[in-house]
């Protein structure tokens, strides 16, 4: 009996040091992942079919080597790009009753801007010397324009924003019926405002 009682206790005083060593090892070798960004789908390689696009349906965005922005032949501030893109896409330039009329568009119906969102194409042209960060800003603003329109349409129709639907859809804990419902709604919104972004191969000025 007394023999057991006399067993010395293992000294745990160095436990903290060991844990610190492990901690420092992980701090050094680990990196906090930055795995988020702007997702883009580039067009396939062999796709040289010619399509006639009316001038009014084309929204030209140019970035010159010094990073200045030109939209539809006019110099524009970066902060105004989103609004300009929204009014272009959501213009709804065909009056009611005619073919191609956009019933859900809330734009002004400007004859210079797009006929309907399905036909609206944004053409982005950058030069080789343009900074990447400027390009990202432009991409971000154009994406924001589409997101804004999609969110508005989604909130109006379903009472939930497009972003929220997408997040819920990618969450795995939703029921299959709910998922299918969401998928249909997402598809509907994407058809209402298809993302048509054309990147013209970069040019040397």
């Amino acid at each position, binding site marked *: 009996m007394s023999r057991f009682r006399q067993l010395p206790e293992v000294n745990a005083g160095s436990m903290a040091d060991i844990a610190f060593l492990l901690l420092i090892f992980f701090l050094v070798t680990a990196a906090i992942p930055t*795995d*988020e960004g702007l997702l883009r789908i580039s067009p396939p390689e062999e796709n040289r079919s010619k399509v006639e696009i009316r001038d009014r349906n084309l929204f030209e965005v140019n970035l010159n080597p010094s990073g200045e922005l030109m939209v539809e032949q006019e110099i524009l501030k970066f902060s105004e790009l989103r609004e300009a893109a929204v009014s272009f896409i959501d213009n709804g330039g065909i009056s009611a009753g005619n073919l191609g009329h956009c019933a859900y568009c809330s734009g002004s119906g400007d004859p210079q801007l797009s006929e309907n969102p399905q036909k609206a194409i944004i053409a982005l042209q*950058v030069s080789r010397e343009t900074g990447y960060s400027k390009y990202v800003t432009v991409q971000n603003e154009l994406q924001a324009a589409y997101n804004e329109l999609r969110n508005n349409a989604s909130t109006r129709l379903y009472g939930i924003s497009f972003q929220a639907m997408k997040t819920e859809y990618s969450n795995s804990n939703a029921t299959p019926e709910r998922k299918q419902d969401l998928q249909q709604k997402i598809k509907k919104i994407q058809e209402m405002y298809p993302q048509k972004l054309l990147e013209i191969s970069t040019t040397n000025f």
Partner: protein
Amino acid sequence: MAKFAKKKDGDLPAVSTASLPDIVFMLLFFFMTVTTMKDSSLLVQNTLPNATEIKKLEKKDRVIYIYVGKPTREYQSVYGTEPKIQLNDKFASVEEIGSYILAERAKKPQELQNVLTTALKVDKNANMGLISDIKQELRKVNALKVNYTTYEGNAFNNLQ
């Protein structure tokens, strides 16, 4: 009754450090869960631009990374200061991207090979010329899903 020796007054008890290991282990587990191992060390400067309309890349096994930026200081004497491409852990030329993507794609399981995303981690001081060359190469090998990796933040900060 001398069994319990009375403490002297004014003798402060030492703070117990018995819970220190627990605290450190907690920290350790926190770092182990939120971080990942570095798979390749960066040879290029990599300050990403900011954007707000970002989408998270959910599955890490479906991503192929391409780094672009100026070589870091220790490589500048050899490789110069012009932005370079880094694939895995060595510098590469634009022509090598196609074969790199094909090799990486072949490493992935069959069912993932069609859903791969290419993440471009490009330094914000790079120029578009190099980026469009890369995109052209990616199109040649049919790697069409491209992610411009950014930090979350106000996109107008990029303009300065």
